[in-house]
C-alpha cells in the first residue's frame, strides 16, 4: 500500500489527505461494529449463563447432549454439536452458526455500503479530489473495514473473557479470545466479499445482492454437509464450514484459520486490483446505461414506492419462505429434542404444547424479528427519500404530505401481512412434507401472529419520522433491537416484568405452541395505528429536513 500512497503529495497535509478514505471508512465501520459487538457479546453471554443456570446436574446435561448432539435436523440448521454436556460446548454450538450468519450479513451489508454506497453517493470524489489513485483508495477503504473487524472482535472478546471468568462458565482467557475470533471470522470474510462485489457491480443494491448470493450458497453447502448425508467434506468448500472446523473451546483447530485468512487475502487483492482497472463510479460489470421505459408503476408516489422496493421485498420474501420451509422440515425432530429436555419440558408444559408445535412456537420469534426488520426498513426508506430531497418532487406537485406517508404505511402494512401469511404457509408446507401433523390453520395463525409487533414498530417509526425525522432510522431500529434483546435475555436472566413488558416481542404469544393472543395483538396494532396517525399529522405540520 505504501507504493500506492506515494502518489500523494509529500507534505504532511498530503499524508493527511492520503489516509482520508481509510479514516472515513473506519469511522463508519467501527461505529456499527461496536454496536454489533455488544449484541454478539450479549447473545454469547446469555447462552453461556442460561445453560449454566438451567442445567445444573450432570444427568440433565447428558440428556441435552444426547438429544441435540445427534439430531440431524438441528445440526443442519445450526451446525453439529460437540460436548454439549459442557457450558463451552453448548455456548459454541448455540453461537457459532447463528452469530456467523448475523456477522456475515453485517459484513456484506457494511462492505457494500462503505465501498459501493459511498462511491455511488459521490462522497469518495469529494474525499479524494485527485489526491490518490482508485487502487490506493480501495486499499484504504479495506484498511478501514479492517478497523471495523478489529472493533467487533475487541468488544466481543472483552465480553466473552468477562463472562468466561464467571465460575459457572469458566472459559480460559485464550479459549475465550479464540472463540471471539471464530465468532467474528464470518463477518471478516463477508466484509471482503462485500468489498469485491462492490468492484463488480455498479450499484450498492446489486453488490449486496451478489454478496448475499455467496452467503446463501455458503449456508446451503454447510447445511448439506451437516445434514448427516455423508457429505461432510462439503464443509471444506463453504466459508461457513471453515468456521465450524475451528471448534473453539472444545477442540480448537487454529489451522482452519488458514483458508479463512487465505480467502480474505485473495478477496482483498482482487478488490484492489479490480479497483485499479475501472473508473471512479464505474464497475467491472457495468450497468446498462438505459432501458426501455416501464411506466406501469410510474403513476404516482405509491406506484413508485412499490417499484423501488420490489426487488428488496422479493429478497425478503424468498428469505422468509426458505426459513419457513426449513423450520417446517426440522420441526418434528427439533420438537422431540426440545421436549426430552427436562427443564424445557417444564417450560413448554407451561406453554401447553409439545413436539413440533412447541419447537415452532419458539422458532417463530425469528419470523417476528424478520418482519420487524422489514418494517423498520420501510421507515428508513421514507426518511431517505426526504433526506435526499427526492420527496420534494412529489410535494411541490399536487400531493399532500399525509397522503404520501399514509400511502407508504398502508403498503408496508399490506406487505407485513403478506409476509406473515407467507411464513405460515411455507412452514406448513415444510412440516406437511414430513408428516408432522400440524394443522394449516394453526401455522397460518402463527404467521399472522408475528405481524402485530411489526405493525407496532411501523407506527412508532412513523411517529418518530413525523416528529424527529433525523432520529427516525436510529429510533426505529433501536426499538427493534431493544425488544429483541430484552426478549432474548429476559427469559433467561429473569428480568423484572416491567422491563420485559417493554419488549414488543414479549407481548406476542408463542404461537403455534399456544393460541395467538389476538386481544394483545389487537392492542399492538392499535398502538401502531394511533402512533402512525400522530406521525402523519406531525409530518404534515413540520419543515422538511435534509440530511
Amino acid at each position, binding site marked *: 500500500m505504501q507504493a500506492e500512497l506515494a502518489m500523494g503529495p509529500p507534505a504532511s497535509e498530503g499524508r493527511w489527505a492520503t489516509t482520508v478514505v481509510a479514516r472515513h471508512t473506519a469511522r463508519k465501520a467501527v461505529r456499527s461494529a461496536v454496536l454489533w459487538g455488544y449484541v454478539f457479546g450479549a447473545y454469547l453471554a446469555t447462552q453461556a449463563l442460561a445453560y449454566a443456570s438451567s442445567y445444573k446436574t450432570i444427568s440433565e446435561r447428558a440428556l441435552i447432549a444426547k438429544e441435540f448432539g445427534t439430531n440431524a435436523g438441528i445440526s443442519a440448521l445450526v451446525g453439529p454439536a460437540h460436548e454439549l454436556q459442557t457450558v463451552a460446548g453448548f455456548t459454541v454450538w448455540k453461537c457459532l452458526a447463528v452469530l456467523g450468519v448475523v456477522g456475515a450479513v453485517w459484513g456484506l451489508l457494511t462492505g457494500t455500503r462503505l465501498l459501493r454506497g459511498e462511491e455511488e453517493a459521490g462522497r469518495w470524489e469529494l474525499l479524494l479530489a485527485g489526491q490518490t489513485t482508485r487502487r490506493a483508495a480501495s486499499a484504504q477503504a479495506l484498511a478501514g473495514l479492517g478497523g471495523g473487524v478489529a472493533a467487533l472482535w475487541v468488544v466481543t472478546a472483552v465480553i466473552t473473557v468477562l463472562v468466561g471468568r464467571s465460575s459457572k462458565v469458566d472459559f480460559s482467557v485464550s479459549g475465550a479470545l479464540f472463540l471471539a475470533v471464530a465468532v467474528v471470522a464470518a463477518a471478516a470474510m463477508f466484509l471482503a466479499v462485500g468489498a469485491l462485489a462492490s468492484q463488480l457491480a455498479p450499484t450498492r443494491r446489486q453488490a449486496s445482492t451478489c454478496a448475499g448470493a455467496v452467503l446463501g450458497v455458503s449456508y446451503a453447502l454447510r447445511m448439506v454437509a451437516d445434514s448427516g448425508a455423508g457429505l461432510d467434506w462439503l464443509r471444506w468448500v463453504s466459508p461457513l464450514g471453515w468456521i465450524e472446523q475451528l471448534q473453539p473451546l472444545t477442540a480448537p483447530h487454529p489451522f482452519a484459520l488458514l483458508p479463512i485468512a487465505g480467502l480474505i487475502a485473495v478477496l482483498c487483492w482482487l478488490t484492489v486490483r479490480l479497483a485499479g482497472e475501472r473508473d471512479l463510479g464505474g464497475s467491472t460489470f457495468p450497468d446498462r446505461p438505459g432501458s426501455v*421505459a416501464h411506466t406501469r408503476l*410510474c403513476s404516482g408516489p405509491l406506484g413508485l414506492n412499490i417499484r423501488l422496493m420490489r426487488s428488496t421485498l422479493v429478497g425478503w420474501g424468498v428469505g422468509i419462505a426458505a426459513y419457513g420451509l426449513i423450520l417446517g422440515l426440522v420441526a418434528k425432530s427439533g420438537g422431540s429434542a426440545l421436549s426430552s429436555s427436562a427443564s424445557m419440558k417444564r417450560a413448554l408444559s407451561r406453554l401447553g404444547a409439545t413436539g413440533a408445535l412447541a419447537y415452532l412456537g419458539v422458532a417463530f420469534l425469528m419470523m417476528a424479528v424478520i418482519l420487524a426488520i422489514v418494517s423498520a426498513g420501510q421507515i428508513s426508506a421514507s426518511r431517505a427519500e426526504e433526506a435526499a430531497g427526492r420527496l420534494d418532487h412529489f410535494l411541490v406537485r399536487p*400531493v399532500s404530505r399525509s397522503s404520501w406517508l399514509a400511502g407508504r404505511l398502508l403498503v408496508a402494512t399490506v406487505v407485513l401481512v403478506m409476509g406473515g401469511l407467507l411464513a405460515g404457509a411455507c412452514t406448513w408446507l415444510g412440516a406437511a412434507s414430513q408428516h408432522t401433523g400440524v394443522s394449516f390453520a394453526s401455522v397460518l395463525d402463527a404467521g399472522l401472529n408475528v405481524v402485530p409487533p411489526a405493525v407496532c414498530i411501523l407506527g412508532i417509526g412513523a411517529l418518530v419520522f413525523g416528529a424527529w425525522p433525523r432520529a427516525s432510522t436510529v429510533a426505529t431500529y433501536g426499538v427493534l433491537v431493544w425488544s429483541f434483546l430484552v426478549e432474548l435475555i429476559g427469559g433467561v436472566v429473569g428480568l423484572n416484568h416491567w422491563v420485559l413488558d417493554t419488549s414488543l416481542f414479549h407481548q406476542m404469544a408463542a404461537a403455534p405452541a399456544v393460541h395467538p393472543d389476538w386481544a394483545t395483538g389487537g392492542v399492538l396494532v392499535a398502538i401502531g395505528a394511533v402512533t402512525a396517525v400522530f406521525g402523519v399529522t406531525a409530518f404534515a405540520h413540520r419543515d422538511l429536513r435534509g440530511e
Partner: protein
Amino acid sequence: MGEMAIRTEGLSKHYGSVHAIEHLDLEVAEGEVVGYLGPNGAGKTTTIRLLLGLIRPTAGRAEIFGLDCQRQVVEAHRRLAYVAGEASLWPSLTGAETLHLLGRVQGRVDDSYRDELIGRFDLDPSKKVRAYSKGNRQKLILVAALMTRPALLVLDEPTSGLDPLMEQAFRHCVHEARERGQTIFLSSHILSEVEALCDRVGILREGLLVEMGTLAEMRHLSALTVEATFEGPVPDLSRIAGVSSVEVVGHLVRCQVRGTIEPLLKVLATSGVRELLSREPSLEELFLAQYGASSEDPDTQAHAS
C-alpha cells in the same frame, strides 16, 4: 393581471437565533417575470421553500393565486411548477420514466410540448438518471416543470450546471412562457440571466428584502458611470456636485455621477473632451452596490461573476 400570483405578508422564518427570512412582503402579479437576487445564504431558497409549503413560516403568511401556501398546498400546487438548482432524482429510473411519473403526479402534460422540450434541451430520455451528468439531470427537471405549462413557474437557480447553449434554450423557454402569460419567479445569482429575462427585480440581503422594483427604477436611483477622454491634462473633477469615485488613467477619467449630470457637463464642455461615454449601471453594479462592495473599479466587478 389583477390577481396576485404570489403574495407574502410579514413572512418570517427563524432557525433558532438565525433569521433566514425577516418580515418579507412580496407581491408578484399574474403574468410578471420577477427576478429574486441575493448571494448564497441570503434566504432565496428559504423564501421559495416557504412559498412551496415545504417549510413552515415562523410568522406571517404566503399565498399563491390567493391560496394559502400552508393550508391549501395541493390546490396551490396544481397551478405551479418548481425547478430546484440541485436535482436529486431516483437513480434507477430512466429519464422517460421520470418524466412520465412527474407528469402523472402533476396531472396534466402537454405531450407534444414535452417532446419539443426534450429536443430543444437535447436530452436522451432512454438513459437512466444514474447515467446522467449534473447538467442532464437539471435539464430533466426543467423539462418536467415546463411541460405542464403551469400558471406559475418557481425557479430556484434553474440553470446551474447548464452549458451556454442550454442556457440559451432555457431563456427561450422563459420568453415563450412569458408570451403565454405565465408568471415566473426566478431566483438566481446569474445577473445577466435576470437582467435579460425579468421585468422586476427583488434584492435580498441577510433575510431582508432591501430593494424591489423595475430595473429602470433601480437604475434611476443609482449612479451613472461616465468615462471621458481629454486631449490635454485632466482637470480635477472630484469637487463637482454629484461626482464620486473619480479614477484617472492617463488622459482617461472614469467617475460615478448621482443625480443631475449638468454640473459635470459644464466642466467637461470647457476642458477639451475628445470622447465622452456614459452608461447606466448594470444589474451587477446595482447588486454589488447594494452589498457594499466597492464600486471604485467597475471593470473588475464586471468580470467578477
